[in-house]
């Protein structure tokens, strides 16, 4: 398995990237860590004649935490997400989730931008960004714009990003309270059979804010509005948890694959969501 021939570019600025995308249109593709894109190219599943490496664009790198807002450049690697201590205190769920992605070798190269822009329902970061209610920053020929992560995903590999745009950063409010990212997989380096992210804030024994989202349980990541509505205002007792779990499983829509049939996946989704809620509750 080897890719077809392509031209390679390594621009320094976002403008240059946009310029190249404009020039080559459909035949061009940006590459970040390459750990989703290169396998696709090797299988010759898509024809890419112009590859634009984002690795030289300094402006896309780095983690900024400012006044309760966290901004992460698209080219920040999963490894950097894990090792950044300031990020771990501003949003500890990021480290917990990142540690469950692939393996160290993949994480040294795989980026947050590539992971969320890819549009693969199996990626963990899109679900995580639903949980965090993140905002995606896009740059294109007409300048920048933002899209809510919860509005970004349309179907598998289809997103709100235009072909001539790139994702420059994600941002979200620093979290407080309980958090958890739970994932079942077959082995290290595997995508999720089912995964869920949960944030929970408790006030005087009652849940004041919550967030629940699913990974690889539909053709897009799923933000579970009903589950959130059940949890908020409840004491997150067994009954509320059971109802929230049921609501989350109800909006899941997995497909059968080598990880298992649909009934199994839905069942495991329930187990994982429950585990995530309970873990978040114990930390809230």
């Amino acid at each position, binding site marked *: 398995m*080897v890719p077809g021939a392509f031209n390679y570019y390594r621009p320094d600025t976002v403008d240059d990237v946009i310029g190249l995308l404009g020039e080559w249109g459909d035949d061009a593709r940006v590459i970040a860590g390459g750990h989703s894109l290169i396998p696709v190219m090797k299988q010759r599943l898509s024809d890419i004649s112009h590859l634009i490496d984002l690795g030289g664009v300094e402006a896309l790198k780095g983690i900024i935490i400012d006044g309760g807002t966290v901004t992460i450049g698209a080219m920040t690697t999963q490894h950097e997400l894990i090792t950044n201590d300031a990020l771990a205190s501003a949003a500890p769920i990021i480290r917990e989730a990142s540690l469950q992605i692939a393996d160290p070798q993949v994480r040294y190269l795989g980026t947050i931008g590539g992971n969320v822009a890819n549009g693969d329902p199996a990626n963990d970061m899109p679900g995580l960004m639903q949980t965090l209610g993140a905002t995606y920053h896009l740059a294109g020929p007409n300048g920048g714009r933002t899209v809510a992560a919860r509005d970004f995903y349309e179907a598998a590999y289809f997103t709100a990003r235009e072909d001539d745009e790139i994702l420059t950063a994600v941002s979200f409010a620093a979290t407080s309270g309980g958090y958890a990212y739970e994932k*079942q997989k*077959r082995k290290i380096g*595997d995508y999720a059979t089912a995964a869920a992210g949960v944030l929970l804030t408790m006030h005087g024994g009652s849940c004041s804010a919550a967030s629940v989202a699913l990974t690889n349980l539909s053709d897009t990541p799923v933000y579970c509005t009903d589950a959130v509505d059940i949890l908020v205002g409840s004491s997150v007792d067994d009954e509320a948890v059971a109802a929230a779990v049921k609501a989350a499983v109800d909006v899941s829509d997995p497909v059968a694959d080598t990880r298992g049939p649909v009934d*199994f996946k839905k*069942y495991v989704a329930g187990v994982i969501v429950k585990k995530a809620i309970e873990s978040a509750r114990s930390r809230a």
Partner: protein
Amino acid sequence: MNEATPPKEERTAALSGLGTSRKRVEDARFTQGKGNYVDDLKMPGMLFGDFVRSPYAHARVKSIDTEKAMALPGVHAVLTAADLEPLGLHWMPTLAGDKQMVLADGKVLFQAQEVAFVVADDRYAAADGVAAVKVEYEELPVLVDPFKAESDGAPVLREDIADQTEGAHGPRRHPNHIFTWESGDREATEAVLAEADVVAEEMIYYHRTHPCPLEPCGCVASMDKVNGKLTVWGTFQAPHAVRTVASLISGIAEHNIRIISPDIGGGFGNKVGVYPGYVCSIVASIVTGVPVKWIEDRSDNLMATAFARDYWMKGRISATKDGKITGLHCHTTADHGAFDACADPTKFPAGFMNICTGSYDIPTAYLAVDGIYTNKAPGGVAYRCSFRVTEAAYFIERMIEILAIKLGMDAAELRVKNFIKKDQFPYQSALGWEYDSGDYHTGWDKALKAVGYEDLRKEQAARVEAFKRGETRMLLGIGLSHFTEIVGAGPVKNCDILGLGMFDSCEIRIHPTGSAIARLGTISQGQGHATTFAQILASEIGLPAEDITLEEGDTDTAPYGLGTYGSRSTPVAGAATAMAGRKIRAKAQMIAAYLLEVHDNDLEWDVDRFVVKGSPERFKTMKEIAFASYNQAIPGVEPGLEAVSYYDPPNMTYPFGSYICVMEINVDTGTTEIRQVYALDDCGTRINPMIIEGQVHGGLTEALAIAMGQEIAYDEQGNVTTGTLMDFFVPTAVETPNYQTDYTVTPSPHHPIGAKGVGESPNVGGVPAFSNAVHDAFRAFGLTQSNMPHDHWRIWKTAQSLGLHD
């Protein structure tokens, strides 16, 4: 005359001979990335070949248009069956007496089958060429279920032999039927079963999987048109056999063919057979006049080269009320895929499946195997086992568990009751084998004690109660397995491959300064031959192992042998090595007698020297003798010190072992956690304990993979759904549990050093241990049988079907 002789122990230790945990001499290069694998080979002008493969499992090939591909820069040739036909090479013989298409001849019979071979400047240009070849297919109905092969309206797969009612292994009753192979006494077995107190019956499926060596298959073929010599470097587990086969099918004289197996990154049976890639590379080199390389990628390897297992084993086992086994009946439906390309000795189309009476004294037994064609890849190789022994071991170890359930008996106790006893060896099995030696009870007791078996059963019972009370969702499984292997094929009187007797060989040359080179007919693929065979020799001839170079794999220099698979290297080539060493020693004794001016019989061997009996101060060391053999004119003795031995083993060897796995199972998620794996092996004399331990770890990890998730799965259309490492389970360090190894030593009575072979035991014994643990966890809830691999969803389904999910 000589200075004081160091003590025996000191001199023995200096040899690093038998029983020493000598570090592997191969590792210096492997751990530094300095190995020399076939893909490392680069030659001037070398071209690269790659296959156009079928996307369909069954289709007629209407046309192949190579024009666009040929027009691409860097593409030199595109071979199709039409190009090979004039050479008679569009089909090739398989090791199982069938034939196989080299390139699609009118139709394709499995997904990823080779359709055309593109030869280009490099692998990129070749891949471009592959993408540019246009093949027009007409899809045909697909057969993936061997049980539907003979039903009305089943598609006929092999039109080439549809009318042949006689195959390589006897009558064929249907175009999709390959052979029926029987062993044992059918009538007597039926009679025993009919009258038995208790009969347990079950279908045991051992799913299709794949050896998946780290390095896939490949070769470089180089036809030197000036001197008429063909050299092929490749991933060959049996280089000499490949040379003979290449000569027979190509018509090139055998002395003009040189086959070289360089370093090989694992074989596990996958590299025994002959593949279309080898044939096409050779033809392409002849056509282009330059070397041609072909290297599979991972998916090619998983989807097209030899698979393993895929046996449906219907068993019936009978016993008295108190658990004495009286009879065993097994009917196996063997899914061989599109061509019968199993790598078994000729007389054994289902390998040594008739070792399926296992470790038990079963007086009456019968086995029948039906080979069936389906639209799947060919193969059926011994994946780290001796010819279907792992299927046989899995079958009997499941049947024992199922019988124990039926009898309401503890499965460990049932085994003890039926083990062949120590004093019954050599033991004649009902299916025709003579087990050479064994002591099953001793190892089994040791194993049960080591894991604290009785306490484990108590803990398990308590867990079941806690589960029923709703206090836990975790079950505890105790997986027992006692296996008996049959390895070291084999005696020439009943073992051959394509007519080549399965002896093996060793040739030794001692150099003047007392170091040596030994060459063998086998080939290491990671087993550490260069380390262990030097140790055998060190003990035999009294030269330090580190002074002995081992060489294998070059047919121009190594003596003829049948290669490395089926744990045969130590039993057969290891025996040849010892025997050649003894020839050296016999000659050395004559030389020493001359030098010491005594009669041969006045000398005795002492570790590394010959000593005059009764005069310990008078001796000649092997080093001195070596030099003398080159510089003394000894009457009646030829100069030099060399020997060669071709060893035809009188019998197989029968390694055995007791394996126990303790496993925690989550009934809601289907996930498992392995708490303990205890593996006691008896491989006879132990040559290098550290290498044995390494082999056991590796084999157990493969067994874990197979039992818990590894499979080659097909959908209804014959598409492989597990064709990459994302879905084909290969455990990483994280999934690999800690292993506790142990041993007993029961030497083989007929092997020169008593060694039996160990490399495959852990795969054979490990799969039932892991699988039995899963089954055992659910025993209290009524489970008798479920199918491997026990991945999360299958375990969940089991729990679901037993009503454990509310």
